């Protein structure tokens, strides 16, 4: 289940399928679940991940060598969705691997294994709209992105096509490190809320407890991804899960 509007801040974390290995993914996801993470993106590794920062780019590169693929992702999803019913799994992928699989077949299979949402950064709203009836029928939520430079009419169109949540890109750029959560950001969030009742998942640049506390009371979900993958890369999945637990516990439970 996606959080309801104005619910207290939840963390969405991440797995790149195949990184550091397919077996390790399962353990890592279990660790995240134990840590209290309620939303997990399962990222299909891709050869050209243009919307990702260096951490995820390199993770994709490694993951592909370890056998990461659409099929591996669906297989894994089947297991982890069953194993962790308290977690909402979201498929994250670039379009081409899904397109090659066959979009309709992919959607059906994803829904069948228990995936509830889908983030595809290079799949624009115009191309998604024709699929909405099918996706709604399957209960597979397309989570679209809004960015700081998205024009108002386009925010309207994107929010209309989105399901489950809106993915709010916190700032311009993908590879930078610091994000400001001040007034400008709050106005931006407020602007989006004018167009939608869906909860907002804020991504890009969420790397510390401070970031989370800054977002607490402003958004329903914080995507805590690159930093987690770096922990996983540098310290292993177990320690990464522990750190995640600390982070989750430290969140101020303030409603929006």
């Amino acid at each position, binding site marked *: 289940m996606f959080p309801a509007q104005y619910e207290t801040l939840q963390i969405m974390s991440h797995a790149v399928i195949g990184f550091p290995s397919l077996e390790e993914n399962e353990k890592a996801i279990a660790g995240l679940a134990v840590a209290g993470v309620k939303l997990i993106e399962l990222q299909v590794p*891709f*050869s*050209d*991940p*243009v*919307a990702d*920062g*260096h951490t995820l*780019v*390199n993770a*994709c*590169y490694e993951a*592909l060598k370890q056998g990461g*693929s*659409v*099929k591996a992702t669906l297989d894994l999803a089947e297991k982890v969705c069953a194993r962790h019913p308290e977690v909402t799994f979201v498929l994250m992928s*670039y*379009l*081409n*691997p*899904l*397109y*090659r*699989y066959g979009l309709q077949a992919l959607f059906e299979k994803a829904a069948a294994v228990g995936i509830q949402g889908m983030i595809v*950064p*290079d*799949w*624009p709203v115009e*191309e998604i709209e024709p699929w909405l009836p099918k996706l709604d029928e399957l209960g597979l939520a397309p989570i*679209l*992105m*809004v*960015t*700081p*430079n*998205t*024009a108002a009419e*386009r925010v309207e169109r*994107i929010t209309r096509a989105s399901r489950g949540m809106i993915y709010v*890109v916190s700032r*311009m*750029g*993908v*590879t*930078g490190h610091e994000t400001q959560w001040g007034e400008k950001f709050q106005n931006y969030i407020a602007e989006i809320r004018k167009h939608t009742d869906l909860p907002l998942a804020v991504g890009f640049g969420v790397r510390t407890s401070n970031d989370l506390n800054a977002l607490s009371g402003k958004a329903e979900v914080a995507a805590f991804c690159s930093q987690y993958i770096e922990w996983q890369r540098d310290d292993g999945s177990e320690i990464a899960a522990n750190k995640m637990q600390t982070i989750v516990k430290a969140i101020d439970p303030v409603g929006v």
Partner: protein
Amino acid sequence: MIRSENGYFGEFGGRFVPEILLPALTELEDLFFELRDDPAFWQEYVTLTQEFSGRPTPLTPLRRLSKQLGGAQIWLKREDLNHSGAHKVNNVLGQGLLVQRMGKQRVIAETGAGQHGLATAIMAARLGLNATIYMGAEDIERQYSNVFWMRQLGSDVVGVSTGAQTLKEALDEALRDWAASVETTHYVLGTACGPAPFPELVSYFQSVIGDEIKDQSIRQMGCLPDEVVACVGGGSNAMGAFGAFLENPEVALVGIEAGGISLEDGKHSVRLSQGTGETGIAQGYKTLFLQNDDGQLGDTHSIAAGLDYVGVSPILAYLSQQGRVIADSATDDEVTEAFSLLMKTEGIIPALESAHGLAGGFKRAKSMRPEQNVVINLSGRGDKDIFNIARAFPQREWTEFLQREAARSTELLAQKGGH
């Protein structure tokens, strides 16, 4: 010139980019749509290419070679005579005019072998723009001569060390830069690929090539050519050469891809002609990509660094599907042979990319009649790439020269007290 329907050419094209890049693309598209039918803008562009890059480039008859091959008369469209040594500069100068109109002060570009990066650095210097060029660390390592020039020209060359550290990664990294800087920065895409409006926009600027071929053919041959042949990397020089002839079905249009070593995976860069490319959506657009069953983009190989690309212009994908463009390929060996033949018979040093067009064009000309005419687009000159060409023709003297030169260079550095 062909026009897209909403960014699509048949099933190919489109604009599949992260949302953050969309405003820049629509801004660019709006400006382009406004200008492309304005003859005054075209004139401004043509004047710039004339005064800075020496256009029109000549159409050179290859009298000796044609006679030797015994078939059609072969003509070369001399894009090698452009400033910077290749057709790439046409597109870049055109985009420079757009940048000025948008009031942006910075450009970025990706580059593989360095040609497009160099052209961009040149344009930026000429127009007084800041430039950042992304280049795979592996490519920098092998193509340092172009890096040398780009830096001398004042550009910032940034090595990309993600993934395989080559063109693909550089392109992705440039897109990442753009995502952060899109409001002040223009991304100068180097070929007729990528998200709309780039394929159409790059083809528009490059169409100056085909317009000239058409005029020159009528003046020099007294008729239109029977065939126009061009190498196909991303497809910009081919679209440039073909554009003016799309409505002349009597003119065959032939694109030559990099046949590489063999048609095995990773040993070539044939996307159009042998059923090796499959429809996919990546790097912002839909076209034929070399990819595996999982939709992962494949490895490519070509003796010519500039043809070593995994996708292809959606316009060419469409025209080839329609049968309007004939797709063929030339292997590395055929290419080095054509390269030597042109040098020795006509005194022109082709780029290895362009030598693909030669190999394909010579083969076709041979089976044609002497009263027929084949125009091959000589997209660039080879002397800019001596290191690459020396790799294609290994020689002891060259190796020894490099060793001596490295020693000399070390000494010079020591004299100047380092850097």
